C-alpha cells in the first residue's frame, strides 16, 4: 500500500476576495460591459472544460457555461462576497453542470466522493522499476528515469509533445482531470481549486499527484519511443 502523507495545508489564500476581484465586482455592478467581457474571456474556457466532466458533449458544456453567465447576472445583486467572485462564478457553473448532467442521465463523477483512504492505491511509477526484497537495496531504482534535459527545450514544447500531454489528461479519471486542469493548465492555487471542487486539501493533493504522475509517465514513454 502506498503511504498517503498528510501534511499541513499550504498557507495560501483561503478564497478571500482578491483586490482585483473586488474591483471586478464593483465594475460589474456599475454596468461596465468591458469588465464583464474580460471576465468571460478569462473564465469561460475553463468553465466549458469543467462542465464537460458532467455533460455528454462539448456543445452542451458550452450551453451550460453560457447559462451559468446568465445565472451570474441574475445573482449579482444578491452576491454577498463571502467567497471570491471567481469561486462564486465557478460554483454556479458546477451546479448548472451537475443539474444538466442529471437531466442527461450521465453518471456524475464526483471529486467530493473521492477518498484516498478507501481508493485503491495507484503507484506513481510501475513497481517493477524498483528493486524487490531480493535486491541489494530494496525500494531503490532498478530502472531509474533518464534525464530529459538532454532533450532540447523545443522538443519538450513541440506540438506533438503537447498532444501527448493532452491525450494523457483526457485519459484520466474525471476527478483527477478536474484537478490537473485547474491547477496545472489554468494555474489556479490549491485553495481556489479545492473551494470550487469542494474537496479537502489532502484529496486535492492526492488527485493532483496521481494526475501529474500519469502525465509524466506518458511523456517518458513518448520520449523513450523517440530515441
Amino acid at each position: 500500500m502506498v503511504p498517503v502523507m498528510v501534511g499541513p495545508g499550504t498557507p495560501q489564500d483561503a478564497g478571500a476576495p482578491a483586490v482585483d476581484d473586488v474591483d471586478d465586482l464593483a465594475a460589474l455592478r456599475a454596468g461596465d460591459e468591458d469588465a464583464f467581457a474580460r471576465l468571460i474571456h478569462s473564465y469561460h474556457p475553463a468553465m466549458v472544460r469543467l462542465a464537460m466532466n458532467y455533460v455528454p458533449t462539448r456543445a452542451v458544456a458550452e450551453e451550460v457555461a453560457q447559462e451559468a453567465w446568465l445565472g451570474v447576472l441574475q445573482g449579482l445583486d444578491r452576491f454577498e462576497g463571502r467567497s471570491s467572485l471567481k469561486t462564486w462564478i465557478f460554483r454556479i457553473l458546477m451546479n448548472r453542470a451537475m443539474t444538466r448532467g442529471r437531466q442527461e442521465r450521465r453518471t456524475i463523477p464526483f471529486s467530493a466522493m473521492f477518498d484516498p483512504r478507501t481508493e485503491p492505491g495507484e503507484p506513481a511509477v510501475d513497481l517493477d522499476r524498483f528493486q524487490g526484497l531480493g535486491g541489494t537495496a530494496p525500494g531503490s531504482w532498478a530502472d531509474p528515469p533518464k534525464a530529459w534535459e538532454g532533450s532540447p527545450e523545443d522538443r519538450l514544447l513541440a506540438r506533438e509533445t503537447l498532444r501527448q500531454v493532452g491525450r494523457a489528461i483526457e485519459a484520466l479519471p474525471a476527478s483527477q482531470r478536474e484537478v490537473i486542469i485547474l491547477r496545472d493548465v489554468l494555474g489556479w492555487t490549491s485553495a481556489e481549486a479545492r473551494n470550487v471542487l469542494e474537496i479537502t486539501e489532502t484529496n486535492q493533493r492526492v488527485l493532483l499527484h496521481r494526475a501529474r504522475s500519469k502525465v509524466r509517465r506518458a511523456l517518458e514513454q513518448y520520449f523513450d519511443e523517440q530515441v
Partner: protein
Amino acid sequence: MSRFDRIRPWRSRRRVFACREMVELVTDYLEGALVPEDRARFERHLEGCEGCTAYLEQMRQTIVVTGTLREEAIPPVAMDRLLVAFRSWRQE
C-alpha cells in the same frame, strides 16, 4: 519528530526514504506540504540519488509542459449573446 512519525512511531528510526517512497512524495514536496523533517529527508535523499533527481526534474518539466496547454476561446457568437444579456440586465 515528524507528524508522519507520530502516526507511525516505528518509522522514526528510519533516516532515509526509499526511492519508491520518494516518487509518492514528490507532489507533497513541490506543494510545500511536507513537515520540515520529512522535507529535509527528502532533500537529503536527492543529494545522493541521480534517479530521484531526474524524476523530480521530470515532474517539474511535466508541470511546465502542462501549463502551456491552452483552452479554446469562447465562440464570438456566444460572447455577443452574453453581452446582449448584460446590457438588458443593466437596464433592469
